[in-house]
C-alpha cells in the first residue's frame, strides 16, 4: 500500500518539468517571480485573455522549491459566419518560487478570477501574493496551522500522524522468544487429508505412506 512513508519505487526525477516528453499540450514559458507580471501582461496583450487556472506544485528537493503554474487560453476568435472560428491556443507559465522567499506578485488586477486561486495556493502552500486584497485561508479553517499540500506536511495531519495505521502492517505481533510452532507443510497436508476423509466417512490414507497399500 503506497503512502507518504514509503520511499519511491525507483529512480525519480527531481525536476519533472525539465525532462518532460515532447507532448504538445501547451506552449511552456518559465519565469522568475520578478519577471512574472511582465510576462503575463505581454501574453494578455497578445490575446491570451482567459486565465484558466493558477496552481501550485511543491518539488521538495529542487531549487527553486515551488512552481506556480499559470494556465492561459487564447479563445477561438469570433467570426460573423460560423466555420471561420480561429484556433484556440494554450500557454503555461511556470514561475519558480524559492523555498526561503515565498512571495510572488498577484495578478488579481489582470484577471479577477485569480482571487480564489491565489488564496488557495496561500492556504495550501504558504506562498504569499503581494498586492492581493484579501489574502486569507480559503479551504482550511481560519485557525489551521501549517500548509497541507507541502510535501513535508504529513498526509493524515500533524495530530493524527502520531498514531500511524495500520500498525499491524508495520510490525509483527509475534513476541520475541516464541518457539517455532513445529508445524510443517507436510503435516498440514496430512491434516487436510484426515479432515477430508472424515467428511467422506472412511479413514484417510496417509499421503506420506501412500505406497503402503495396507488398510489401517
Amino acid at each position: 500500500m503506497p503512502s507518504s512513508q514509503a520511499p519511491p519505487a525507483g529512480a525519480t526525477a527531481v525536476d519533472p518539468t525539465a525532462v518532460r516528453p515532447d507532448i504538445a499540450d501547451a506552449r511552456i514559458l518559465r519565469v522568475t517571480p520578478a519577471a512574472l507580471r511582465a510576462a503575463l501582461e505581454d501574453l494578455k496583450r497578445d490575446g491570451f485573455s482567459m486565465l484558466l487556472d493558477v496552481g501550485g506544485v511543491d518539488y521538495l528537493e529542487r531549487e527553486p522549491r515551488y512552481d506556480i503554474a499559470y494556465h492561459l487560453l487564447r479563445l477561438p476568435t469570433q467570426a460573423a459566419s460560423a466555420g471561420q472560428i480561429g484556433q484556440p491556443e494554450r500557454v503555461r507559465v511556470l514561475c519558480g518560487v524559492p523555498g526561503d522567499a515565498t512571495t510572488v506578485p498577484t495578478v488579481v488586477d489582470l484577471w479577477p478570477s485569480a482571487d480564489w486561486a491565489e488564496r488557495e495556493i496561500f492556504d495550501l502552500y504558504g506562498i504569499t501574493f503581494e498586492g492581493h486584497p484579501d489574502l486569507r485561508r480559503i479551504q482550511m479553517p481560519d485557525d489551521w496551522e501549517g500548509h497541507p499540500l507541502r510535501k513535508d506536511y504529513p498526509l493524515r495531519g500533524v495530530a493524527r500522524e502520531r498514531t500511524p495505521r495500520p500498525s499491524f502492517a508495520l510490525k509483527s505481533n509475534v513476541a520475541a522468544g516464541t518457539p517455532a510452532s513445529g508445524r510443517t507443510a507436510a503435516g498440514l497436508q496430512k491434516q487436510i487429508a484426515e479432515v477430508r476423509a472424515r467428511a467422506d466417512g472412511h479413514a484417510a490414507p496417509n499421503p506420506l505412506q501412500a505406497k503402503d497399500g495396507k488398510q489401517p
Partner: protein
Amino acid sequence: MALGNSGADFLLTTVDSVARWAQASSVWPLTMGLACCAIEMMTATAPEYDIARLGSEVFRASPRQADLMIVSGRVARKMAPIVKRLYDQMADPKWVISMGACASSGGVFDNYAIVQGVDTIIPVDVYVPGCPPTPDGLLYAVNLIQQQIKRGGRGGILARA
C-alpha cells in the same frame, strides 16, 4: 410508571405506544446533504425509491423542525462544528443516520481534512455502508430507525433523550 394502578399503567403505555407509532410514521429528516451521498439521498426522495411512503414526507431545512439528521457525505474539519451545532439545535427526540463510508468512518479519505467518522462528534443510531450506498440502503436505515423508535429508547410521550 410506578403508579400502582394497573389501569393508569395501561393507559400510559398505550398512549406511549401510540406516540411512538406516530413518531415512527413521520420521521422528518434534516437536509444535511454534504457530498455524493447527498445525491443518493435526493434520489431516495425521487419516484424510484420514494422515501415519502415511509413517512419522511418532507425534508426540513430548519433543525428545529426535523427529527432525523442524515449525515450524508464526508464531514470536513471545517464543517464539523456546524454539524455539531445543527445537532444541538434539533429538538428531542432526535435520531442520526450516518450515511456512507465517509460519515461512518472517514471512508476513502484517511487524511488531514476529513473527520474520521461523524460519531466522533455526534451520537449515531444507524450506520449505512456504501460509497455511496444505494437509496435502498438509506430506506432500510430509515426502517431501522422506525424499529428503534417503536421498540424503546428515545421517543414516546416522555420525549427526553
